[in-house]
């Protein structure tokens, strides 16, 4: 592998190839497709957070002029193998949260469809909902699912706790007994939404042979294909999915809600059906991330050496099992080299929408708890919080809390960079607080495919199957250009549909630049191998005597041949004469994704009269491995930081006692706007991942992990006392200030 400073394309900052279309409105998003004779689908949603569905009658809706189809749970395959996903797309015998889909119609106009929903009769038997993780775990709690047993152990009574996961090492009691100082934090983090701007949308059509085509905004159209097939009881081969551009996902578009319903309505009506969620539907019926209750405890010697740590985590899963508590448990202590620890996590059902992935799923909440405790420990010890972390830092060779030994990682470098950063060395302003926190995410590999097609003029078209969320087209072009030795503008990357490119897992898990990038590199190496063969044939020498350098085939030193180098353009021009078109391809199940660590720090000011917290400065430092396109790495770091700051300061789902969300819109669910934020400073640490030819780790998820605790710790510094729960919204801060004054 070349050293970073030798790269010609990698590390440059060209404008993204999809940028102009996106800023001029030319790009097509999920709701932009219109087809002849297309109908508009709308969903009827449960007005109850928990209710038995005794009867659904769509006949009056179907009789309405302009209505062409209507369906309910009974129209979908239902048996003992019906998945939670299918029941989430369309309720069967129970509505499990307010907004759960119970029926749908397709009509000539959206207006007619809305009116038709009013004619659907649903007989409910309302049940009391369970709305809070602690309430759901209590003895005698109302059960969301009467057939659910913890960890599948049917010998125990049914429970809302779907799973308990544990990680332990050493003797944690002994470790705490050895400590000179022990601190504990008990905190709650609310449900937060990914905040993507584009609501879920799709259009579906199905022909007389049962072959369906779905256009949708998604993070993974191959997953849409398999999940839709699962819900409809169809084979994967009967469904083609074409991804649109995507207006944000952050994990929330890795699953499906509308697609099988649109296909079913198309099948019933014989026409294409478009379904577009309103913003309110996005909030009420799609998956946010888990609300959590976490306890963290950490003990240390006077010199700062941590002797033991423990954590207890409870995550709301929503109406079906599957909260990201496992990753929370596995990440909470990942930055530290510890001899004694115990971590216990709980996956808990409540009558709320099933949670979905959100950037580093599960890690921000868990690490908010532990990084708050580490901050308190530093205060108790009188140590600089960076020095405390350096004293206990995980390094290459450290056994991670979840088992394996870390290869080369960059946490220590992030800490050292923080300590030297001008934003950290400068004194904080009077009346402000500064907080530090660490972040971590595993990153993943998984399956990807890519083709690299050499055109007759020597330009290269890369085709892969990952929707471009964060600039991946540009990253693929850069890696292809670097591998082939051609300029960036000679390469184009196209995101193919499920029939025009090989299988790719979702764009998520910070995997695309790593795994799909690996496939692109290998596809380009395949082109190079073929070009060397064509050159060898042209020069009448053995292929082993041909090198590839700077985008051209050259005879190896010492090879006695009278030949000029053949560029990619030369070889492409004569491809027909030397064997036909040149097409490189690769499919990988990429292994060896490199973990990414970060350190964030914030300076905040608290208005003690209003309770408002202003973030004065925020700095993100992250080991990204090699930064293929540094501007987009910085963009990921800034975007994650802003989402984390929003979660820390204002964002939360507010429910009434009946389980009805009271702030289902961006006016009341307050994401940060530009005027709320300072410029987010970034510093990329590049510790190359040894498992990738260019050293790529993953970037997109780690940036959201540390801002929660960094902000909380900064507020603690400014206020002189800790507010453990998030968000640190003005009402909560004001109440805490008042309580502190009373105390």
């Amino acid at each position, binding site marked *: 592998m070349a050293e970073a400073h030798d790269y010609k394309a990698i590390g440059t900052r060209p404008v993204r190839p999809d940028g102009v279309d996106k800023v001029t409105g030319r790009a097509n998003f999920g709701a932009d497709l219109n087809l002849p004779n297309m109908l508009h689908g709308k969903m009827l949603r449960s007005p109850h957070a928990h209710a038995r569905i005794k009867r659904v009658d769509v006949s009056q809706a179907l009789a309405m002029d302009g209505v062409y189809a209507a369906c309910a749970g009974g129209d979908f395959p239902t048996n003992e193998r019906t998945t939670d996903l299918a029941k989430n797309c369309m309720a069967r015998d129970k509505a499990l949260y307010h907004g759960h889909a119970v029926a749908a119609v397709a009509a000539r106009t959206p207006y007619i469809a809305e009116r038709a929903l009013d004619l659907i009769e649903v007989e409910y038997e309302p049940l009391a909902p369970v709305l809070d993780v602690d309430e759901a775990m209590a003895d005698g709690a109302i059960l969301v699912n009467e057939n659910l047993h913890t960890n599948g152990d049917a010998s125990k009574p049914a429970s809302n706790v779907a799973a308990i996961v544990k990680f332990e090492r050493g003797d944690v009691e002994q470790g705490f007994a050895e400590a000179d100082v022990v601190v504990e934090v008990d905190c709650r983090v609310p449900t937060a939404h990914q905040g993507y701007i584009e609501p879920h949308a799709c259009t579906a059509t199905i022909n007389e042979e049962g072959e369906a085509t779905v256009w949708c905004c998604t993070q993974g159209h191959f997953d849409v294909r398999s999940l839709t097939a699962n819900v409809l009881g169809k084979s994967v081969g009967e469904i083609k999915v074409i991804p649109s551009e995507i207006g944000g996902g*952050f994990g929330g578009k890795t699953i499906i809600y509308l697609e099988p319903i649109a296909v079913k309505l198309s099948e019933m009506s014989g026409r294409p059906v478009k379904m577009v969620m309103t913003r309110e539907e996005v909030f009420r019926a799609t998956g946010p991330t888990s609300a959590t209750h976490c306890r963290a405890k950490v003990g240390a010697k006077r010199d700062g050496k941590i002797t033991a740590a423990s954590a207890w985590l409870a995550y709301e899963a929503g109406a079906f099992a599957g909260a990201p508590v496992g990753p929370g448990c596995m990440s909470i202590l990942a930055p530290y080299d510890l001899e004694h620890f115990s971590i216990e996590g709980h996956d808990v059902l409540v009558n709320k929408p099933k949670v979905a*992935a959100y950037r580093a*799923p599960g890690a921000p909440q868990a690490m908010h708890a532990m990084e708050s405790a580490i901050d308190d420990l530093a205060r108790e010890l009188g140590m600089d919080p960076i020095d405390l972390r350096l004293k206990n830092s995980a390094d290459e060779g450290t056994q991670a809390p*979840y088992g*394996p*030994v870390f290869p080369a990682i960059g946490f220590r470098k992030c800490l050292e960079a923080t300590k030297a950063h001008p934003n950290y060395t400068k004194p904080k302003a009077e009346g402000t607080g500064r907080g530090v926190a660490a972040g971590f995410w*595993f990153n993943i590999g998984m399956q990807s495919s890519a083709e690299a097609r050499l055109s007759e003029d020597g330009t290269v078209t890369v085709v892969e199957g990952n929707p471009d969320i964060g600039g991946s087209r540009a990253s693929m072009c850069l890696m292809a250009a670097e591998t082939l030795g051609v300029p960036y503008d000679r390469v184009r990357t196209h995101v193919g549909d499920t029939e025009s490119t090989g299988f790719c897992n979702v764009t*998520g898990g910070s995997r695309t630049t790593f795994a799909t990038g690996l496939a692109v590199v290998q596809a380009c190496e395949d082109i190079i191998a073929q070009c060397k063969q064509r050159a060898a044939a042209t020069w009448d020498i053995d292929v082993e005597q041909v090198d590839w350098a700077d985008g051209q085939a050259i005879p190896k030193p010492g090879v006695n041949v009278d030949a000029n180098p053949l560029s990619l353009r030369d070889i492409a021009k004569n491809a027909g004469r030397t064997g036909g078109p040149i097409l490189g391809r690769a499919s990988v199940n990429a292994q060896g994704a490199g973990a990414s660590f970060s350190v964030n720090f914030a300076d905040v000011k608290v208005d003690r009269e209003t309770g408002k917290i202003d973030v004065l400065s925020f700095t993100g430092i992250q080991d990204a491995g090699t930064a293929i396109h540094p501007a987009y790495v910085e963009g990921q770091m800034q975007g994650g930081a802003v989402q984390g700051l929003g979660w820390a300061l204002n964002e939360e789902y507010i429910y009434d006692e009946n389980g009805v969300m009271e702030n289902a819109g961006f006016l009341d669910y307050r994401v940060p706007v530009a005027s709320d934020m300072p410029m987010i400073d970034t510093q990329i640490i590049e510790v190359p991942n040894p*498992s990738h030819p260019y050293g790529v780790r993953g970037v997109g998820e780690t940036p959201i992990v540390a801002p929660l605790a960094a902000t909380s710790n900064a507020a603690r510094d400014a206020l002189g006392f800790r507010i453990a729960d998030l968000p640190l919204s003005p009402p909560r801060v004001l109440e805490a200030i008042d309580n502190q004054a009373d105390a």
Partner: protein
Amino acid sequence: MAKVVFPDHLLQQTGGTKETTVEATNFRGVLRALEKLWPGIEETLQKTAVAIDGQIYQDAWLEPVRPDSEIYFMQRIEGG
């Protein structure tokens, strides 16, 4: 013999055994060996991720396993 370590929440299926050793040349062989020890466990383990000598795999049937390998089962990691 490769060392295999289970997370605590899987101990219910191993009768409390946290650590064992198996003879296998690849991960598929590890799964088969464990299935012989605890019938039914393979189905559970197919749904987990695994770290073999520090490298995390989501699907790893063909990954080589050495006599001194360390194998840790862990939750699958997805992501946003």
